[in-house]
């Protein structure tokens, strides 16, 4: 590999750029994933960050600093800044210098370096947890402080290796189903089995807590089920919202031997507790007043849980961290596509849920077809002169709505629906009035927040069965829809620059399709308007997630030729 072929460029702040076009890109990407966090992946250059935590995650998996440096040198186009080399060696050598162990009923912090132990016993962040200095290398820690000590130690730069073990929790007879209701056989994929083993570590104290990091669509839920089947303990599952809750429940009932009565929902709507209980972060962090306690956190003690699963652990709210600090003796599994948190609490995930215990190179997932790809198209239409006049005279919020409801969008939509007449298409919009016009003009069924549940279930079923191919969906319904069969989404209006929303909408169509077809995501926006500006912000976010945008200006019905829809 010549210097010019090398794909990596290491910046002095430990940012790592990886050039996608390099012939060694895939190899470098997979090697980097072990000790750096992917921050963004736009078209040409992906950005990773080497952080103390990413290095400690690597160290916890047994990687040495020499290996990290060797990898960087191997793929780096330019010399690695001297301070980066020093930092990597220094940070990685810190992991494992301290261990938490159990000696009978006693919780001990041990370290080879007596000076370090001395420092910790006197440090203002940690001294409150110290009960006694047993010998130069050992401190007795108050049993209730296991999680709190870990949190503080990581803050002062010395992550501890927790080998203090777990309570077993109440037994639960659970197995994975070998065959699904539709008759298809079911088994964990190889990498899913490997993830389960990496977490379990034969039941030793070295395993049993940690985060599994896999991209969307790689089957993280199924890995959760695999861990449940391996441990066979009562399990509390924490998820982001009700849609996810129901999806988990459906998967558990479909893919394990558990029965309907054994899998309970704990949400704003139902509050049942059973051998397997699925609760939302929202209900657990609910309280009437800011000064009140969180009443639903008692769920953590409602059963003798042997396993707690944290879905989308990068979104875990702060109060859940606090309670998790108190339950360090229970096995904890975090599932996520990224360890990067917008609130910067990555170190709490590391110390309270556990270090990353498994990830898998993208190459493997792509090669095996477990990740779908999507093509994004933005179609820019002008605002007719009549609306233009109204637009310029209106306040900003009204301008946005005028641009969103641009009647020119109807022609484009018409063309798109013709192009995708045999696909499963979701037409998504922000404004009910506009959606009603669309539903009526194209004679399509519509799903909104006020659609009765029975009707909603019926529409879902008909869409899944292929009886309905095109479905109009409002923003409210958007969050409660799980229609993996959709392979085309057409967004005719969106909210003010919500990046999360765009990602969510795109996520609807990103599940791998049986026929492995490419999914399409269209956004129709009014050119030269505030809607276009907001759309740009959302797209920038998606571009950083690795989606490519084709952009077309549509200058009137005559010029309307929709890009190939596949």
């Amino acid at each position: 590999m010549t210097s010019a072929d090398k794909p990596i460029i290491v910046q002095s702040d430990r940012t790592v750029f990886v050039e996608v076009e390099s012939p060694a890109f895939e190899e470098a990407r997979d090697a980097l994933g072990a000790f750096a966090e992917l921050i963004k992946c736009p078209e040409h250059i992906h950005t990773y960050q080497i952080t103390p935590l990413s290095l400690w995650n690597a160290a916890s998996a047994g990687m040495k600093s020499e290996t990290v440096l060797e990898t960087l040198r191997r793929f780096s186009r330019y010399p690695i800044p001297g301070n980066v080399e020093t930092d990597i060696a220094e940070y990685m050598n810190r992991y494992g210098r301290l261990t938490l162990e159990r000696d009978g009923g006693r919780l001990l912090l041990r370290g080879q370096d007596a000076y370090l132990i001395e420092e910790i016993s006197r440090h203002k962040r940690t001294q409150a947890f110290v009960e006694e200095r047993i010998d130069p290398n050992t401190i007795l820690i108050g049993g209730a402080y296991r999680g709190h000590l870990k949190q503080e130690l990581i803050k002062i730069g010395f992550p501890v290796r927790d080998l203090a073990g777990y309570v077993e929790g109440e037994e639960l007879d659970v197995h994975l189903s070998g065959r699904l209701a539709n008759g298809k056989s079911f088994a964990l994929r190889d990498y899913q089995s490997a993830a389960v083993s990496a977490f379990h570590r034969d039941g030793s104290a070295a395993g049993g807590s940690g985060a599994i990091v896999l991209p969307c669509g790689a089957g993280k839920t199924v890995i959760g089920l695999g861990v449940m089947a391996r441990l066979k303990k009562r399990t509390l599952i924490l998820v982001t919202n009700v849609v996810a809750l129901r999806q988990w429940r459906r998967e558990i009932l479909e893919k394990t031997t558990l029965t309907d009565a054994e899998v309970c929902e704990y949400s704003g709507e139902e509050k049942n507790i059973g051998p397997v209980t699925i609760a939302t972060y929202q209900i657990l962090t609910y309280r009437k007043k800011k000064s009140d306690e969180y009443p639903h956190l008692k769920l953590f003690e409602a059963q003798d849980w042997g396993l707690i699963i944290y879905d989308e652990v990068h979104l875990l709210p702060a109060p859940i961290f606090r309670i998790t600090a108190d339950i360090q003796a229970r096995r904890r599994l975090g599932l996520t596509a990224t360890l990067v948190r917008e609130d910067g609490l990555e170190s709490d995930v590391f110390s309270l849920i556990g270090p990353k215990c498994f990830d898998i190179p993208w190459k493997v997932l792509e090669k095996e077809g477990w990740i779908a790809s999507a093509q994004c198209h933005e179609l820019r239409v002008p605002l007719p002169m009549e609306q233009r006049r109204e637009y310029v005279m209106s306040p900003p919020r009204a301008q946005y709505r005028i641009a969103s409801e641009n009647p020119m969008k109807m022609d484009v939509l018409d063309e798109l629906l013709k192009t995708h007449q045999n696909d499963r298409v979701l037409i998504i919009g922000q404004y009910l009035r506009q959606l009603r016009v669309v539903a009526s003009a194209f004679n399509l069924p519509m799903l909104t927040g006020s659609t009765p549940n029975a009707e909603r279930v019926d529409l879902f079923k008909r869409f899944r069965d292929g009886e309905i191919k095109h479905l109009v969906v409002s923003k409210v319904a958007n969050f409660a829809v799980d229609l993996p069969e959709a392979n085309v989404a057409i967004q005719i209006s969106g909210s003010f620059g919500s990046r999360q929303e765009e990602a969510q909408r795109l996520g609807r169509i990103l599940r791998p399709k049986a026929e492995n077809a490419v999914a399409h995501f269209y956004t129709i926006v009014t050119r030269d308007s505030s809607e276009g500006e907001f759309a740009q912000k959302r797209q920038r976010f998606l571009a950083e997630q690795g989606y490519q945008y084709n952009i077309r200006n549509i200058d009137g019905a005559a010029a309307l030729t929709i890009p190939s829809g596949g």
Partner: protein
Amino acid sequence: MNLYQMLTHIPHERLQRIADSFGVGVYSPSKRNLLQSIGARYRDVEFLAELTAELPHSHRGLLRALVFFTPPEHETIELGADLAAPWVEPEHLPGAVEEIAALGLIFPDDFRRNGRVILPHELRKSLLDVFRGQFKALTPRPGPASPMPPQRHIALEAVFHLLCVLLHVRVRQTQKGALHKRIFELWTQRIGEGLASESRFQFALDFVVHAGLARVEESELELTDEAARWLGHGEYENRRELIRFIVSSRVSRSREMQRLLALFASVEGENPPASGELYAVDDLLAELELNAWPEESDPVPREALIERLRWLDAAGVISLDDRERPALAALTGWGRRWLSLEETVFIEPEPAAPAMIQPNFELLAPPGASYDLLWRLDQIAEFRRRDVMTEYHLSQGALLKSMRRGWTLDAVLAFLDELSGGRVPDLVRFSLEEWGARYGRIRFRRVVLVECDGPELAEEITHLPDANGALEERISGACFAVSEREARRLFKLFRERGYEPSHDNVFTDSSRKKT
């Protein structure tokens, strides 16, 4: 011209005296034999050390300044009075030069007339070793790792970022003539906390003003056109310019600075320190005190010496571990090259690989990107960070700002295409086009309104032959818009034709002249 050729200029008798004084054995005292024997001895560092020891300290100081601080690539050197000033009074300079030349250590090139001397390369090299022997070699120790890529020149970086700050911000002086602190903060944001220091900022500012890249105009520090030209000279030339500035501003007139630099050149001994290794400042200053020549022994307070170290660090000649309280110091690679300790010469970076423009509007310029290219990027994009890669962000604000500076949308797009090898992502191109298209759709321009008392008169004056199409822009039946220049001509024309036009103070200057 080599040393042998130079020695031929020394009279036979003088050569004989040198040979006798230093015990140079000559088989036959012919000039040719003398030249061969003495020539061989002039390459002998020990011999030269003895020879220079014969010189008064002032002459030695002068010779050392010549060896260290004049451009090593030239053999003919202009010995300005400034460089000699710390050692010899101007009126004694020709005599001193002749005395040094009498020993064959330099060769005057009609010095009294043109101030030039000749110092052959091989003699400079040997003399360099002689002067490096003044101080003893010290043992280096590991210093902190620098975040800056080693091939970059810190002082040039400081200058470049200051120019960029001046490009974007109006810099007003305070009443005391200083710059507002905000400018230092902006500069610090660009160059990075780890590399910023007040001394480095001041160095950059002094250089920028000295080189005419900026000037103070009505209490405002503003860029001159020279800035862009200077950056366009290329880094090799920029570095040479820096050396000239360093020598002229602080080295040539300062005995202490010359001594300090000789010290840094000496303490390396035969083995240059490994990358990142530095010497203890305490050891350096102790050595400086112990091995001073008598003329050098005026005690210079430690804090004053530390201040000079900070300046040399700001100039990129040495690096310090800590600019506030330096404990370790050593020559930088560039400093070593300047003092001729390293033979490697600076080579302009290879033509840069294409820059990467990402669909999220990031632009990454590769390490080899020239200052000239970065300067242009700074005009059309928002600077984010300079590291191994230099990061910019394309934005509506930056684009419109560049257009107000005179860039056209086409020029921006062409530049980005050229930079990226034609790979400007759709999202970026469409956005730039949309933003750029807004610029100038409404235009304010300065015109003079020519108003007639009715459409008939307006029609009539359009037919005046000398109006020459100046009345083409008719904005109503009785009104025309004309440029200021044309207005003056038309006014005169109408008056000549007997129309007796009036005006509302449109031509204030000319009316004052008449009264």
